[in-house]
């Protein structure tokens, strides 16, 4: 398991964070997602053997948002 932080600059309310956290249910290999509207970021814990950063970014995009891996 690995934990990474993605910046999501286009969240506009707390409900956006809830939508993004639903990745927990949608993506195989995800253990936990904590999204924060206050920080405009998402911390995701996932199995890197099952999931890549690109797949995560694409999944966030399908939710209607843009994710950038935090440096």
């Amino acid at each position, binding site marked *: 398991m690995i934990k990474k932080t993605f910046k999501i600059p286009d969240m506009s*309310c707390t409900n956006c964070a809830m939508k993004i956290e639903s990745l927990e*249910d949608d993506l195989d290999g995800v253990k936990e997602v904590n999204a924060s*509207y206050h920080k405009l970021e998402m911390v995701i814990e996932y199995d890197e053997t099952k999931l890549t950063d690109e797949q995560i970014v694409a999944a966030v995009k399908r939710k209607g948002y843009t994710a950038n891996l935090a440096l």
Partner: protein
Amino acid sequence: MSTKQNKPSVDPVIVVMLGVVFLAVAIAMIVFQPSTNSINISADANVMSQLVVAFVTGITTGGLSCLAVQGGLLASSLAYQIEQDYSAQAKNKKATRTNSAMPIALFLLAKLVAYTLMGALLGWLGSFLTLSPLTRAILMVAIGIFMVGNALRMFNVHPVFRYFSIEPPKFITRYIRRTAKGTDTATPIFLGLLTIFIPCGVTQAMMATALGTGSVLMGAALMFAFTLGTSPVFFVVAYLATELGSKLEKFFMRFVAVVVLILGLVTLDGGLNLMGSPLSLQNLTRGWFAPQTESNTVAESSQPAVVSDEITLNVENNGYFPAVLKAPAGKTLTLNLITNKTYSCARDFVIPDLNVYQLLPESGTVQISIPAQELGSKLFFTCSMGMYTGQIVFEN
């Protein structure tokens, strides 16, 4: 992705809109000063009219704002149900699609009940907080700041304003999210009840107002009227939420933000009035209308039966007349408050600096003793809502 997107930018349109809003509020405050004898907003003080205002707020901005926050939740539930229906139809040709109107209606009904109860609870809590006009004033100022902060958050003015939005605890959002995937009749009811944990900005503002009423019944009625107002918009648009949600959100959030900003500034100003602050917009601008509003030293007063140490104020449905009373400094005075079929909140008379709080009869005269004041000083008076104001100016 460019770093530019990470920085909140303020586009010129927003700056202009903010300017227009501030100007509009300033003009509204001036126009609606009780002393101008113009169309009054005493209706706001009237219980029924407050409920109408809450309903209209719901049916206009509240419905759209709720749609942005809660619409997706209902739509996801419906989408899942439709998906299940199609799946059932694929397996069994005789299976029929569920009518989506019923879950939406159940959702909205549950939401209505939940928010009404929430309003009652807030009103009850508020009754403990409104022990004094000062407490009420502090609450109104806090509510006003909260509303203005939320409006500025919606305008994306600065990242700090995001903290005016309350993030529900993770376990609640997770529970709501997973409950949304159910298909039984109880699910929309559950979801409707759970929306109280994810109120939109306008709803939060209305909840704050319910807290400010300090009354169980009024708090409940206010939230009922508001939530009822949101329901038709919510019902109609819920069908389209999946396709139009994000597009509508961007367009309407600015409109919602403007309304919340106006309501916030009005509330903040009311709080400042109730504190007796000279910094409220009404108190700051009162001097601009001196010829119309001022009376009247004791000797000049048009009121009958005035004796030398008495000053008289007419308390009417649309405010206090005259709004500026002149009185002699350095002597104890008697202030006669005259009501005549006065039903508005002007009856709840407050002089913050003297800690005077007097509920006047609908018709009659009440006398209040004013201790000697320094030459040139001012005493601000107001109704308990901070809507109607005036001042006593102490002169030679």
